C-alpha cells in the first residue's frame, strides 16, 4: 500500500517543478505584458513583477508540494479581495461614490459580471436582445468579453469555474477557512438543489420583467462592489437584502459550517455551471481499491459534492468545483484529478498536470489585472 501511495504521489523534485512551471512562466509573462513589457512606470513595474512572480511561485508550489487547494485558495481569495477593491475604486473614480444612480442605469454604464448570465438566456432567446444596462463591447467589464470568458471556462473547467475563476467565490472560500472545525456539522444535503430553484425563479422573473432581478434584489456581492443609491424605501430594502445575504451566506454561515454556503445554496450561475460539469473533460475520480473509507474527503468538501454513498460508489457528484480540497486531504491518494474516460488510478499525474495548467492559466491571467491595480495603488502610497 505504501509503495502504491509513493508511486501515486503528485509531489515533484525542485528541478522538475521548475520545468513544469516554465510554460506557465512564459505564457503569463506574455499575456500580462501583452508581449511588449513597458517598465517606464515605476509603480506599474513593481506591481507587474510582484504579481507575475507571486502567481508563478504559487504554481511552482502546486507542483513541488503536490498540494493544490492551499495555493489555489490563496490566489482565489486574493482575486476576490482585489477585484472588489478594483471595482469600488473604478466606481469611485468615475462616480465619486460606491453607489450607482438611476442615471447610470439609463446610460447603460453598469459593469457586467458573470452572475447576470442566467438572467440573459430567456430574454435573449425570445426578444433577441440583452436586458442588462451595460456595454455590449468595449469599456470596463463588457458583456461580450465576460460571456466569452465564462463560456470558455465552463467548457474547459465545468463547475471548476466556481473555484478557479469566479471572483466572488473567494469571499465564501475565505470565510469558510476561518475556523479549524465547524460549529454547525449537520446540514441537510438536499440544500444543494436550492440554486436550481433560485435559477428558475430569477430566469423567469427576469424574462417577465425584462430586467435582471437577481442583480436588482438579491445579489449579496452588491455589498462589496456597488449598489443602488438609497433614495427611498425600495432602494433601502434592496440595500438591506444585499447586506443581510452577504452577512449571512458569505460571512456567518461559511465561518460556522466551513462550507461555501452562498455558492452552494444561492448562486444561480452555480446551478448552470453544475450542468457544465457534464461537458468538461476534467473531473475528480475515486479509486475504490485504494480508498480506506475514512471519509475525510466528505468532511472537507466545501460544496456538498461528496457523500459517504458517493465515496462507496466511487463517484464524485456534478456539484464538484474541483477545488482540490478532497484530493489534498486524502491520506491514500485514492481521490485525484482525472480525465473522463480514463479509469481511476490511471494517468493520475498527467491528468493533474493538464488540469492544473488549464485552470491555473485561466485564473492567473483573469486575476492579474485586479491584483496589479491593487499593488500599484499600495506602491503609489509610498512612492
Amino acid at each position, binding site marked *: 500500500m505504501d509503495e502504491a501511495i509513493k508511486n501515486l504521489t503528485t509531489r515533484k523534485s525542485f528541478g522538475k517543478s521548475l520545468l513544469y512551471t516554465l510554460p506557465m512562466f512564459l505564457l503569463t509573462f506574455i499575456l500580462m505584458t501583452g508581449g511588449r513589457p513597458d517598465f517606464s512606470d515605476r509603480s506599474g513595474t513593481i506591481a507587474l513583477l510582484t504579481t507575475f512572480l507571486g502567481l508563478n511561485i504559487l504554481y511552482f508550489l502546486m507542483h513541488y508540494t503536490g498540494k493544490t487547494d492551499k495555493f489555489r485558495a490563496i490566489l482565489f481569495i486574493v482575486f476576490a479581495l482585489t477585484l472588489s477593491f478594483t471595482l469600488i475604486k473604478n466606481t469611485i473614480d468615475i462616480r465619486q461614490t460606491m453607489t450607482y444612480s438611476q442615471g447610470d442605469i439609463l446610460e447603460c454604464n453598469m459593469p457586467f459580471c458573470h452572475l447576470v448570465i442566467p438572467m440573459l438566456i430567456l430574454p435573449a*432567446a425570445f426578444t433577441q436582445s440583452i436586458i442588462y444596462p451595460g456595454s455590449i463591447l468595449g469599456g470596463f467589464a463588457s458583456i461580450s468579453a465576460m460571456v466569452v*470568458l465564462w463560456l470558455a471556462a465552463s*467548457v474547459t473547467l465545468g463547475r471548476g469555474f466556481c473555484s478557479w475563476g469566479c471572483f466572488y467565490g473567494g469571499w465564501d472560500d475565505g470565510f469558510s477557512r476561518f475556523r479549524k472545525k465547524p460549529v454547525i456539522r449537520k446540514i441537510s444535503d438536499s440544500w444543494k438543489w436550492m440554486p436550481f430553484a433560485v435559477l428558475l425563479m430569477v430566469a423567469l422573473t427576469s424574462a*417577465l420583467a425584462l*430586467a435582471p432581478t437577481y442583480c436588482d434584489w438579491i445579489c449579496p456581492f452588491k455589498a462589496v462592489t456597488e449598489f443602488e443609491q438609497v433614495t427611498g424605501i425600495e432602494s433601502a430594502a434592496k440595500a438591506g437584502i444585499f447586506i443581510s445575504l452577504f452577512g449571512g451566506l458569505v460571512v456567518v454561515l461559511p465561518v460556522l459550517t466551513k462550507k461555501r454556503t452562498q455558492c452552494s445554496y444561492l448562486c444561480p450561475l452555480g446551478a448552470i455551471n453544475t450542468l457544465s460539469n457534464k461537458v468538461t473533460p476534467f473531473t475528480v475520480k475515486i479509486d475504490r481499491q485504494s480508498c480506506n473509507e475514512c471519509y475525510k474527503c466528505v468532511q472537507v468538501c466545501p460544496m456538498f459534492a461528496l457523500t459517504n454513498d458517493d465515496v462507496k460508489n466511487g463517484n464524485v457528484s456534478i456539484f464538484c468545483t474541483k477545488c482540490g480540497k478532497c484530493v489534498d486531504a486524502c491520506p491514500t491518494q485514492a481521490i485525484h484529478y482525472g480525465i473522463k474516460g*480514463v479509469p481511476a488510478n490511471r494517468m493520475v499525474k498527467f491528468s493533474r498536470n*493538464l488540469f492544473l495548467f488549464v485552470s491555473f492559466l485561466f485564473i492567473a491571467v483573469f486575476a492579474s489585472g485586479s491584483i496589479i491595480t491593487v499593488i500599484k495603488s499600495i506602491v503609489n502610497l509610498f512612492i
Partner: protein
Amino acid sequence: MNKFKMTAGIIWALVCLLLMIILYFGLGSFSAGLAKLPFMKLNPHASGGEIAQQIAMENCTLTIRKPVFDGLFGERKKGFVQVDWRGNIPEIINDTIDYNMDNSPDFVIGINRLEDKVNLVALNPNVRDVAISTSTSRGWAARVNIYNEK
C-alpha cells in the same frame, strides 16, 4: 470501447488546453465576434429605446425616444417613453413633448434640477406618470409611463 473512451477523453482535454491558451490571445476578436450576433444588442428596457426625434434647443439637445412597450412575447399595455436633455441644460426645464409624432402635444414636463422636483401635465389620456427623473453624465433624463395606444 474503453480504449476509445480514454482516447476521446484525452483528446478533448488537450483541445481544452489549446482553447485556454488561445482564449486570452483572441479575447478581443472572440468578443467582437460574439457582439456581432443578432441577439447581442441592448433591449429597449435597458437602452431606453431608439431615438425618434432630436430637437436642437438654445443650449442643449432634446432627444425623444420611441415608446417602449416590449414584453417577452409581444407588446404590453403599459410602457414608457424616455426623454433626454444633453448639453448646457437650464436649471428649470419646461418642455412640451409629442412622443407619438401626431403633431399634437402629449405631455408637458417641468423639471426643477436644483430641487430635484418634477411636474407632469398629461395632455394625452395615455400618459400616466413620471417613472424616473434623474441627472446623467451628459445632462438629464426622464422616463414617463404611458399606455399603449394599440
